[in-house]
């Protein structure tokens, strides 16, 4: 059912009666986005080593891994099989169901 003004937890009663200039809305939207912005977690040596081990193992086993990539607004999780690790350019090649994709170690915050 479409929510109406009586639906609990919805804000339609107020949203339907307010007057806001689009320029004002935009400003608030930007503001909210800035609030939600996160800083990248600092990984310590052990964690980095631990991530490296798991990457090596996943590469060796050709097993499916789940990588968490940092993004200031919404961390991204992608899964696939690691095809190649290039330590010179600090990145790895991931085969996802759709395509192959290079991922920078710099963006990685977790490997499962």
């Amino acid at each position, binding site marked *: 059912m479409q929510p*109406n*003004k*009586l639906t*609990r*937890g*919805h*804000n*339609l*009663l*107020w*949203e339907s*009666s*307010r*007057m*806001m*200039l*689009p*320029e*004002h*809305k935009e*400003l*608030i*939207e930007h*503001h*909210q986005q800035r*609030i939600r912005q996160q800083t990248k977690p600092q990984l310590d040596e052990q964690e980095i080593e631990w991530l490296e081990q798991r990457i090596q193992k996943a590469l060796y086993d050709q097993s499916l891994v789940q990588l968490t990539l940092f993004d200031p607004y919404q961390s991204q999780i992608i899964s696939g099989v690691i095809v190649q690790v290039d330590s010179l350019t600090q990145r790895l090649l991931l085969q996802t169901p759709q395509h192959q994709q290079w991922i920078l170690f710099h963006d990685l915050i977790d490997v499962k």
Partner: protein
Amino acid sequence: MDNKLIFLVDMQSFYASVEKSANPKLQDHPVVVAGDPERRSGIILAACPIAKQYDVETAEALWQAQQKCPDLIIVRPRMKLYIELSYQITQILERFTDQVEVFSVDEQFLDLTGTERLFGDRYTVAHNIQDEIQEELGVYARVGIGPNKVLAKIACDAFAKKNEQGIFELTHHHMKDTMWKLPVGKMFGVGSRMEKHFSRMGIQTIGDLANYPVQYLKKRWGINGEVLSNIANGIDYSPVSTQTHNGQKAVGHHMTLPRDYETLEDIKIVLLELSEEVAKRARAKNYRGHTLSLGLRGANVNDPTGFHRQIKLTSPTNYGMDLFHAALQLLNKHWDGLPVRSVGVTLSQLQSADVYQLSLFNPSVEKDQLSKAMDDIRKKFGQTAIVRASSLQEAGQVFDRAQKIGGHYK
């Protein structure tokens, strides 16, 4: 659910107060902010308390106000500044809670549930809010306090605006002795038309409405009947939502014309301009819309004519010409031929522009590229760098609109 600590913070004559604190010379004079009297926007947008002593009212024509108060100082609106300052107020309020919902340029809701131990009791917090806004922006704020948004809003509108401290609390406990005594027209959600209906039903006060059997109200007005009954009883479950401005349901643009437009040719020109503007904004937000509505108001204010109709588009679009053709179709069908005072075009049923159905006979790639090229040119060289040739005619409004926000100068 219904027992939170909600504040509604409202700025007294916001635009006028801002102008006064920006220019201290105006401090002791009656000041109004008003649009250009040469054009239709020549109405009072805000009047300072001194001007209000002369019975100057918001929304009346400038000449009427000048008759009441010959020494009136008239200031042109600076919309961009007001938006900027409203945003600063939001940031001041966020010192007290992150739950701040902007309701309009001069009203904001706060959910302060559970902050008593941080900032003290509700009256202390309300005073602190007033002081900080006064000190930093020179604007007087009034605070309505309630267990939900509806009571906070009514506490502010009907009581805090009128009392000495500018602070008032409405609770379920004592609303019967205060709010229920008010005429029903003072209630949030009741306009002049509704007030007339109620008066014919013998409902004079908010209390009368609260005690009126809800099933009759529901039968007559459906959901809205029940909503009004709830408001009269101080019931409101709406959350204070910070994300309320994100999900957009429609992109619309509306303008009041500088003079009444009487010919189809003239109306078509602004219709195309509006369609282009709406399409441009939809593209900027990466939306396509599936429904277009056109609203038109007649020139005679006392005998309101006009219509508001919508049409489903063949496929979701954000291309100005598509919107224009649909709007024109509505215009041809519903316009009664009488002079027109204002026109509005709205695109709704929005969906992401990333995914869309390819149409076999109406290739959209070209349109996309064309639209994108125009957007890029406008971004780089200004909004009027590229316009439709029809806008060069006398009836065109783009050049005028480009200097404005919300129909008033930036």
